[in-house]
């Protein structure tokens, strides 16, 4: 006689948590990745985030400036003063 309980239902492992962590953790994770930085003026800067500081000053590489969806400028490197930043969005999977 087999009195052992039936095997538990095979449940898929939970998906990797994508919403955990603090804003600081997010920023640590996006350094070195492609990002979109939107300024309060509505201008977007797309490039590789090389670093940022506590004021949210940002150094970007391979930067494209987008206004209304069209590229208006390219910069090899760009320093963006933090007070102008509205958000930083990851443009590739973390």
């Amino acid at each position, binding site marked *: 006689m087999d009195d052992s309980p039936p095997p538990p239902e095979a449940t898929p492992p939970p998906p990797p948590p994508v919403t955990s962590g603090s804003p600081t953790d997010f920023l640590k994770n996006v350094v070195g990745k492609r990002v979109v930085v939107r*300024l309060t003026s509505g201008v977007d*800067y797309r490039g590789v985030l090389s670093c940022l*500081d506590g004021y949210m000053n940002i150094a970007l590489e391979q930067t494209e400036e987008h206004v*209304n969806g069209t590229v208006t400028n390219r910069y090899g*490197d*760009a*320093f963006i003063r933090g*007070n102008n930043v509205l958000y930083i969005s990851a443009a590739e999977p973390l």
Partner: protein
Amino acid sequence: MDTSTGIQEPFDLIRLSLSERVFVKLRGDRELTGILHAYDGHMNLILSDVEETIMLVDGMDGAPSGQGVVNVAKRKMEMLFVRGDGVILVSPPSRT
């Protein structure tokens, strides 16, 4: 962080541009190019041999938005102090 260029914080980008010609984007649709002599933590800048470009958009009546005529004014200055709070972006010369 960025081992290839030795940049650990954004201000390193500016420090590496001292004595070089930089592009500065300012509030009010203004742009500057000039030789960077000094900066501080506010991004106050001292530039020399500066050319300022001012974009003036004359919105035409009846024209859809974004269709106005863009006038560009330029002027040159020998030496300029830029107050940091007007700075949006600083781009050093490409280090290639």
